[in-house]
């Protein structure tokens, strides 16, 4: 069996797990062009960290760590710029188009909710929605499992409130 070169390993790895990179990028920036730049930066970091991969952890755990670390740093770097321009993502009004299918509206609400979260909470929410176990989330973020459970519980409560508010305002119309 031919031995794979590091370049082949890298290309297969990112192709197989591209979903992780794109989903994390989407959670941290709303503009498509910026998302692509972010994915590219994540891939550079993966390529450069390949030698340092610790096989004690699952490959997905390692990839989430890199993707989230790059995304958080990128998000923090651009935070001031966005604030100055007054286009903080959370301020984008939610479309109230009644013709929009309900699922689409719910998805937009969920996306807007994630946009408004602080960078570390965003990471937790993405991992939770990605159906990662609390133990893996704890490994990725670097906090205890009980801390993960408490924080996710809090975020979910806020999200539920948001969905019920939306429902009330829709029924009122």
């Amino acid at each position, binding site marked *: 069996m031919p031995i794979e070169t590091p370049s082949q390993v890298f290309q297969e790895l990112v192709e197989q797990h591209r979903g992780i990179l794109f989903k994390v990028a989407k959670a941290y920036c709303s503009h498509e062009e910026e998302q692509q730049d972010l994915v590219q930066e994540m891939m550079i970091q993966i390529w450069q960290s390949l030698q340092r991969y610790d096989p004690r952890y699952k490959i997905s755990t390692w990839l989430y760590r890199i993707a989230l670390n790059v995304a958080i740093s990128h998000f923090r770097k651009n935070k001031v710029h966005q604030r100055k321009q007054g286009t903080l993502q959370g301020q984008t009004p939610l479309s109230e188009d009644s013709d929009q299918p309900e699922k689409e509206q719910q998805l937009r609400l969920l996306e807007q909710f994630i946009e408004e979260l602080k960078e*570390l909470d965003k990471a937790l929410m993405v991992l939770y929605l990605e159906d990662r176990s609390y133990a893996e989330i704890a490994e990725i973020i670097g906090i205890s499992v009980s801390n993960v459970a408490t924080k996710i519980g809090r975020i979910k409560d806020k999200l539920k409130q948001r969905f019920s508010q939306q429902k009330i305002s829709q029924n009122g119309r």
Partner: protein
Amino acid sequence: MDDKELKALWQTQAQKLEENILLTRKYAEEISKMKVQSALASMKPLKIFTIIVGIIWVGFVDLLIIGSWQSGSAFFLVSATIQVVLSKLALGIYLYQLVLISQINLGTPVLEAQEKIASLKASTLWVARLLFLQLPIWTTFYLNAQMLKQPLSLFINLLITVLFTWAALWLFFNIKYENRDKKWFRMIFEGKEWTPMLQSMEFLDEIRYFQKDEEYV
């Protein structure tokens, strides 16, 4: 909406995103063939440049001190020695930052890596503190015994040096994150070059609250 529905909703957008296979292939090929630099590594050149300029400067001042050791004024020698020691300390901070940059591994847990990145940026505050500590020497290096023989000149120089020393020490001990909201602090660190440093300090706070399971606002 329950957990299952919420996760299913998230997956609907995820499916669209995962279609970017061609883009992923293109990036992966480019990255593995070219010599590319990550955003973190791109911080290195400026640090290295600062260190080189710093080494040239301290080397120059060291030579001046050695050259004028026998004949130079005591005021100049003491002032230059203090200046060069403080500059070497500032150089040490830049070297420490360079080491930190090479040690940061983004494959480690998010909080660990982010804490290192934020500490790296926040350590720049130490450079500012050391620079302010140099204030009094700019009021003494040009003095000589002749100038201090006149009582008025002695009084004025002494007053200025005492004031600068007081200001330098006060700033050295008070330039800290806890004072970030004070008016004088904001005046000093107003420019955009300081914003990443101040934000990093704020983020360090957030990280600590996050670790402690406290709700941060």
